[in-house]
């Protein structure tokens, strides 16, 4: 384990060859933005929008096109080339990125822009000292202050950050820069203590045991109608979710010249599955809410062997009418028990 003084972080950021994203104050909370010389805010807990937006931008050009007489000229957008460093993401969001990897970097097709960016991304995870009341990462087997497989895990000890590399790439970077010193034994045990204590601060629990199997049996249960009743069908939960990956493809053009781009889309929107002939397989919010919960709790496990939820709590924190996935899971468990 290595240590770096917080005052030396600007030197670290400057030494990194690529674009460095750090947490910044944004709106009534925090967000990730390219480092501009300011150090990150000390009271930062987690960002409103997850760092998925760095790897999977909300809007991204695919190609530009030009109609030339009968012809179409297509010019693919130049992909992202610059290496990306995300400094200070939380273990839940690290997991979120790993889950997006399963979607975008696996299966018969790779998602080229995501994969290209991801191959060039270095993730520097900062352990949480304390969870928020809406955090329930431990329910999904995550730890608030440690992310297995992260390039770096870091712990904030006040004056210094402790760094432990978790990948070959992580070790190489740590060894290659002269900004670090070996951590003292005292510091290492402090970090371990922080890690253990952080776990205890996660009080919210979601009952995950057997939920997938239970939901498989209850697709038509009246509970769905009840749960969906208060949903307003906005997309806040999905856009702020670190694992939601749905997107739309759209064009914008003037006089036959324009761009095709992709942008986030939400399964909560009324026209999301609407077909050209007018048929909609998910016509009301009962089906839409059901799809969102099942995607996370049943389909993701069926397809990838992992839950599509990391317990970051953003959806419960930000839903205008306080829909709560943990409460839903508890309700569903009750229903299944009967």
């Amino acid at each position, binding site marked *: 384990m290595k240590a770096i003084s917080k005052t030396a972080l600007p030197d670290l950021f400057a030494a990194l060859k690529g674009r460095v994203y750090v947490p910044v104050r944004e709106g009534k909370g925090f967000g990730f933005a390219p480092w501009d010389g300011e150090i990150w805010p000390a009271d930062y807990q987690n960002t409103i929008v997850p760092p998925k937006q760095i790897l999977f931008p909300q809007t991204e050009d*695919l*190609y530009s*096109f030009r*109609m030339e007489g*009968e*012809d*179409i000229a*297509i010019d*693919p957008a130049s*992909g992202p080339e610059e290496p990306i460093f995300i400094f200070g993401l939380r273990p839940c969001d690290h997991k979120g990125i790993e889950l997006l990897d399963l*979607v*975008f970097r696996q*299966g*018969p*097709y*790779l*998602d*080229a*822009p995501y*994969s*290209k960016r991801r191959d060039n991304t270095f993730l520097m995870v900062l352990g949480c000292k304390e969870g928020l009341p809406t955090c329930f990462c431990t329910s999904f087997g995550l730890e608030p202050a440690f992310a297995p497989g992260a390039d770096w895990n870091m712990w904030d000890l006040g004056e210094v950050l402790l760094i432990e590399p978790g990948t070959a790439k992580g070790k190489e970077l740590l060894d290659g820069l002269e900004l670090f010193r070996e951590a003292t034994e005292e510091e290492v045990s402090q970090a371990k203590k922080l890690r253990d204590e952080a776990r205890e601060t996660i009080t919210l629990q979601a009952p995950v045991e057997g939920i997938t199997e239970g939901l498989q049996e209850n*697709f*038509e249960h009246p509970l769905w109608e009840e749960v969906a009743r208060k949903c307003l069908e906005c997309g806040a939960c999905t856009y702020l979710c670190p694992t939601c*990956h*749905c*997107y*739309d*493809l*759209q*064009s914008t*053009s003037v006089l*036959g010249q*324009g761009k*095709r781009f*992709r942008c986030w*889309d939400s*399964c909560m929107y009324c026209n*999301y*599955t*609407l*077909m*050209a*002939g007018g*048929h909609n*397989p*998910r016509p009301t919010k009962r*089906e839409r809410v059901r*799809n969102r919960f*099942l*995607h996370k709790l*049943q*389909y*993701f496990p*069926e*397809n990838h062997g992992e839950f599509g939820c990391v317990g970051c709590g953003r959806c419960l924190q930000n839903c205008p009418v306080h829909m709560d996935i943990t409460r839903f899971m508890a309700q569903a468990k009750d229903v299944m028990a009967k």
Partner: protein
Amino acid sequence: MTNELIPQVAKVVAVRRETSDVKTFTFRGEGGLPFAYMPGQCAMVSLPSVGEAMFSITSSPTQEDMEFSIKRVGLVTEALHKLTLGQAVGVRGPYGNGFPLEMLQGKDLLFIGGGIGLAPLRSLINYCLDNRADYGGVDIIYGARSPQDLVFTDELFERWPKVEGVQVQTTVDVGDETWQGPVGVVTKLLEELNPDPQGRIAITCGPPIMIKFVLRTLAKLGYQDDQIITTLEKRMKCGVGKCGRCNIGGKYICVDGPVFTVAQLRDLPDEL
């Protein structure tokens, strides 16, 4: 790494009007076929400034060109219907699993199509007829709303019936003075013909309501769920199982489908 979402440019080399709202387009890429495909697979056809939509490929891979039969129902299809010879379109694909050819080999085949639902079946029918020795008897039952709504009439009435071992029956919901054939829904015809389920696979495609009744009738005639194949349609955007739109349960129609046996569908939630 190529971006799957970027189409290649193909040209319209033929346009054939099938009905008042269905046209069949033939596309050719720069080097001939835009890409290799199998019967039952789909492709995204696009006009960049309008949009993109998924269509089943109507031609058989044994043909030289790639054909799409497109019904005018929305924004993209309306624009496609205005295409003229020589114009360029974007195509990407192939997408989806296609028909399970190994499973069909050596079997008798029963095709039941309704309306534009004959489009994906046509690909397989022509493929089987071009590889005639690999398959047993071929029965084709096709229905449309009226004689004017019948697609692929050349094949229905001229080409297919002439092939040995092939029987074609066509029905319309409502006839007119020119119509000599049967009148009524396809299920009626199906019950009358009562094809023996033994060693036979039924392949059906059409409007959801027709499929529903066809499945019921087939069950009545003794067909098992794993003897019946259908191909589904959903709103799709990416075609590569990532944009999240076309799922039924955990399956994405664009990669896990669109072709399913009824036995497979039974395992999926009812969200068609």
